């Protein structure tokens, strides 16, 4: 889809909502925050002249200039670090990384620097940095470009990590991240960029960090998911409801750190069963963390062991049938639900 056809309807600014894609919702959040706060600036590869590798920043350089929307060379460690330093002096950099896979070459700046500043200096210096980057498998991008490292970052004290699964949350969580005084990683998702939804036009539409959402109510089982896994879980829940009369509740985490375990535990107390779904590898992953916390918090509520499902633990292959088989696709999620229900 070209950016020109994606401009959100702005006939009624600041009130009501408009239907737009996830990508447009992100762009709207960026535009609003650039307009609201001079300290906000965007930095990354191809964000300006090229209008964004995935067109999220399309039109922003023309609107705000090359200082506020700053193209960088291919130097992730360099410009993520430059974002860290600028944030330490009170700027509000929003650094775009082309995909989460490329953030690995800047890990030292994220984990050893950004995440440490608050605690290591006793709260004297803050680092209000945002890094936004998509992950997501399923487009035959193969082993080096299909990974979900959400759990690595969510397991790092000092960072905050959000993972919007729909356009409204994409706007609200990105705005919350930009306004937060700590380093926040916003993990977007490639397959969702084109998904449409209703997005509040209110420039103050901010989704607070650390608050999950019950994306679908149900009584038989709780499916805990985030990012694109939420979209899949919702499809599976609708299908199981119509075909087999099973009512699955879907909890969309939205934030991985801080994690809203209260909402998860409340749901499991109601359904007595839990399935955790992620696109990353489950070993030592987000679902491993969830399973441990649910097992402890909901020990007396559970009628079955907590189950989890994620990417098959192999580097993702190219061949379409192999890739599909490896992913936590809807068939595998549905099968896991049925297995938990016994």
């Amino acid at each position, binding site marked *: 889809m070209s950016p020109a056809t994606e401009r959100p309807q702005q006939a009624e600014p600041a009130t009501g909502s408009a239907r737009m894609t996830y990508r447009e919702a992100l762009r709207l959040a960026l535009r609003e925050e650039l307009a609201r706060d001079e300290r906000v600036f965007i930095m990354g590869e191809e964000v300006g002249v090229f209008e964004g590798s995935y067109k999220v920043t399309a039109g922003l350089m023309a609107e705000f200039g090359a200082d506020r929307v700053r193209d960088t060379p291919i130097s992730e460690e360099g410009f993520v670090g430059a974002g860290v330093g600028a944030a330490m002096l009170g700027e509000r950099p929003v650094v775009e990384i082309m995909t989460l896979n490329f953030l690995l070459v800047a890990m030292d700046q994220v984990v050893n620097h950004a995440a440490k500043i608050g605690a290591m*200096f006793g709260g004297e210096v803050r680092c209000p940095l945002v890094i936004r980057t998509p992950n997501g498998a399923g487009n035959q991008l193969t082993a080096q470009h299909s990974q979900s490292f959400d759990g690595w970052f969510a397991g790092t004290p000092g960072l905050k990590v959000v993972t919007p699964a729909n356009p409204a949350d994409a706007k609200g969580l990105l705005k919350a991240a930009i306004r937060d005084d700590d380093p926040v990683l916003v993990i977007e998702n490639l397959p969702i960029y084109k998904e449409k939804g209703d997005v509040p036009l209110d420039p103050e539409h901010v989704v607070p960090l650390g608050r999950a959402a019950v994306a679908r109510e149900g009584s038989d089982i709780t499916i805990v998911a985030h990012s694109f896994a939420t979209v899949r879980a919702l499809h599976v829940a609708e299908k199981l409801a119509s075909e087999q009369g099973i009512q699955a509740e879907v909890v969309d985490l939205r934030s991985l750190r801080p994690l809203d375990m*209260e909402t998860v535990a409340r749901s499991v107390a109601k359904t007595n069963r839990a399935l955790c779904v992620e696109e990353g590898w489950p070993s030592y992953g987000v679902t491993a963390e969830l399973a441990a916390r649910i097992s402890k918090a909901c020990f007396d509520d559970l009628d079955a062991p907590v189950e989890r499902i994620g990417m098959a633990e192999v580097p993702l292959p190219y061949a379409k049938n192999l890739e599909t088989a490896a992913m936590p696709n809807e068939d595998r999620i549905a099968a896991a639900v049925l297995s938990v229900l016994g």
Partner: protein
Amino acid sequence: MAIAPAKTDLLELYEQMLLIRVFETEAERQYKAARIGGYCHLSSGQEATCVGVIEAMHANDLLVTGYRAHGFALARGTSPEAVMAELFGKRDGCAHGRGGSMHLLDTERGYYGGWGIVGGQLPLATGLALALVRQGKQQAVVCELGDGAVNMGAWHESLNLAALWKLPIVFLVVNNKYGMGTAVDRASAEPQLHKRASAYRMHGEAVDGDELEAVIDTTARLLDRARDAREPAVLEAITYRYRGHSVADAGLAYRTREEISEHQEHDPLLRTAARLREAGASTDELRAIDERVEERVEQAVKFASESPEPDVDSLAWGMHSQGSDVQFERMRPGSPFGEQELVFDGGLGK
């Protein structure tokens, strides 16, 4: 060469250099007495570089260093009490007992940290310079690094960005001949490290880092260019460290005692003292400095010993910004044993 500092200024600078030497000697003693833990990297022998560079900086210029940081902090004016208390892991330390030897901090004096990952401070310092430009400030950043750091990718990426974006920053390479135990010519294909700036069309030059006045003049000139013309530069200060890489390293596996002695014959303190005598300083004046410095370091140890330890219930203090406790309040169900008491109740985001 600019005008040499007046005798009174030189006396003051000499006192700072001596303070670093005596402080480091005492730090090693305290480390061996197990009152300082972790890593402890000493600057003995490098005092003229520390004091000269800081002397050339404006009060509002910013400083970032690697982990051999005591000398720079002391030269910048952080009190010996606050530095020693930090080494002791005490509440009154300059990083509140959270940083230790490698992570000193003094934001009031524009010192944005000692950093412990070789080369990691370069991108961050480049970002400080970017922020200064965005904010329209007439200030510059001095980013200190060791000779070993020039072989990191972060060096290449930072120099390229600084040159590309014309940022007001001077990369100060403290070439003390060895990255841990690896001699410079065993690590860098171009052992004249300042020449590597040319790859970025950036000015690079070397200075005798043990010659106080040369360090001051060269640094001042490069900082002026950075501030006024936004021309970044590399300054290679050639010096020598007397002690091992850290206190745990005897420093003799990769060099001889003779080599160390040879350097000590050209000691920066001796050189500066000789200049002072030429300028008319009396033996009494120099002795008075000796006594004052000894007393200050003694006082620093006393202060550090008496400073309280940080409260355990402040364990998570500073990790997140104020108000973050509300964001984390729903994380508690199912927490691992102890997390509630240590982290959530430990000042997280309060």
